């Protein structure tokens, strides 16, 4: 699965948040999307999943755009939003059933998958509860389960680590690794740089709606001329550039 973003310009209403943004996520790659608040991370994600319509440029998944085939485009993506979004009137079990129906997945096989994930996140004894009443972290886990049990090829995770307990963070990273081994791609936006530094193959540094730099950690070090730096140092240097 490859995601290709070419000269993407867009945003909310008349304000262009993204200005000619371009980057690529290759097959089996885990990519960290990094930037300050308001740099355009969530806006980029909303464009990819099709909640916002680009004003210019292209977004292609395996060479296919949203307009060419809405349903197949959507089937390729699984999304975990920054703030959990649940149906107040459905139980945890029903959220899983609904997702299976919506994405037309194989019922038994997916449930097998889901059960394993629910066990991992210690939710398997809460199937008849309303997730709407869960804590932030537990809601986030429900969103993760519903995303990772699908057959999606591109996983888009918006700031996944806040609110999760350390054990769950670890479990999530294992899941990401598992998907990567299976040839899926993962695009992850986050502020927790130390974590993403160890688990992503590539980083995209966003600033003011543009890609300031991208590449592996080594490539970034070279670009910023900081040989002993970690991702934190590079990030701070980038943030100071426009001061």
């Amino acid at each position, binding site marked *: 699965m490859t995601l290709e973003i070419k000269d993407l310009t867009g945003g909310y209403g008349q304000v262009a948040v993204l200005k000619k943004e371009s980057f690529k996520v290759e097959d089996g790659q885990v990519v960290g999307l990094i930037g300050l608040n308001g740099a355009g991370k969530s806006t980029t994600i909303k464009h990819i999943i*099709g909640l916002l319509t680009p004003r210019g440029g292209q977004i292609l998944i395996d060479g296919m755009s949203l307009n060419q085939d809405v349903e197949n485009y*959507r089937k390729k993506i699984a999304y975990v939003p920054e703030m959990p*979004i649940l149906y107040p009137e*459905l139980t945890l079990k*029903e959220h899983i*059933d609904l997702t299976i*129906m*919506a994405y037309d997945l194989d019922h038994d096989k997916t449930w097998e998958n889901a059960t394993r994930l629910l066990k991992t996140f210690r939710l398997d004894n809460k199937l008849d509860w309303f997730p709407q009443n869960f804590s932030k972290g537990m809601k986030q886990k429900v969103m993760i389960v519903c995303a990772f049990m699908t057959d999606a090829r591109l996983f888009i995770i918006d700031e996944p680590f806040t609110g999760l307990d350390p054990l769950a963070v670890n479990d999530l990273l294992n899941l990401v690794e598992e998907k990567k081994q299976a040839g899926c791609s993962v695009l992850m936006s986050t502020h927790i740089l130390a974590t993403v530094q160890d688990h992503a193959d590539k980083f995209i540094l966003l600033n003011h709606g543009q890609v300031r730099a991208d590449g592996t950690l080594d490539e970034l070090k070279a670009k910023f001329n900081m040989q002993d730096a970690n991702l934190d140092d590079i990030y701070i240097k980038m943030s100071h550039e426009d001061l």
Partner: protein
Amino acid sequence: MSELWKERLKRHQLNQFKYLRLIFNDTFVLAFIVLLGALGFWYSNLLDTIHSQLWFGKLLVVAILFLTAQAGKLATMMEDPDSTFLLVREKQFFKYFKAAENYSRFLPIVLIAVITFLLSPFAVQGAGMNVWDVVFLGISTILIKMILLDVQLVGLYGKNQLFGVNLPLLMNLVYLILVLAASYTFTWLAPILLLVLWVWFNSKVKGFADAGHLQWQKAITDENQRMFRVKRFYNLFTDVPGISSKIKRRKWLDFAVNGIKLKHDNTYLYLFARGVIRNNEYIGLVLRLTILQVILLCLIDNFYISLIVEMLFIYLVGFQLKPYFKEVMQNLMQRLYPVAAKSKIAAFTKISNTMLLIQWFVSIFAVLYKFGLSANSGIIIVAGLVVIGFLNYLYMPHQLRKFLDNGEY
């Protein structure tokens, strides 16, 4: 602080005005006026049948006035962020509440005046009172309302009891005893004694407030609930944004939705069906209006009015199920589903059809009870079906389509 109050009041009134305009714009208000007329007609007919004083006449008058006095709460316009941002201004809040209380008196007093006026012919004819008695009772009711608002105000400062008795209960009991006793002896005594009580209690309010602490959480929850009730009322007539509803599991109703097969085409049917039976808002709406409809149909003798009632109530329920569609469409995750908009609308139509057919089926019994197996019954029953057809096959699909197209859903 009084600046803050004025600003909030202005915003609140603008909001209310917006909703009121929406309500009075709707065509069905015409039908509502017809309904009011029918009730007025029924009342006047009822009065004609009363020729002598009824033994329960006075009790009924007092009971109605007592219930009227319970309507209308202290409108504080408190907002959630207040407990964070205005915490330091606690001491100044008393002035704000006083202004709120002044404002909150207006509507209940008007309501009491109107109800007293409407009651007066019955009170004279059925309860053996004279016009002055009725006026005295009305004034007493206004006074107890003022006292109850004071009680609510001190309640915000944690003062719930007086002499070890629950304050609202105590005041209501005093009112009931005074008014009942007075109405069988000298009615003018009630307003005088209640005036004394009000003057005394009102002078105590500041002291009670100073002695306690402002109960922020309670004040804000109370106000939110009050606003929720107001909005729910408006929601009966028009769409009110931001009205969030309570969800209950209602496992015993699962049988109704378990029949829906787990397959791709049923995605939205699965979702809507569960929502409608678990969301208090919508199941409550269907229940309330169906019961009211059945009662009206059983009471009204007039064919034309029954016809209007049947059609109006089915229309009302159908019209008010629409916000549920919008509520679900606002969920971002469902917008990502690989499901076409067409099948979302089709699923909603199915749900709406089911609910309205149940309502229609129940109403048939009331119609048959009143009009028997007659042509009139037939016309009313068929008219109900016509409204369902109009709603679900002409009006709704068009409206929902427009909603989906406009909102990038």
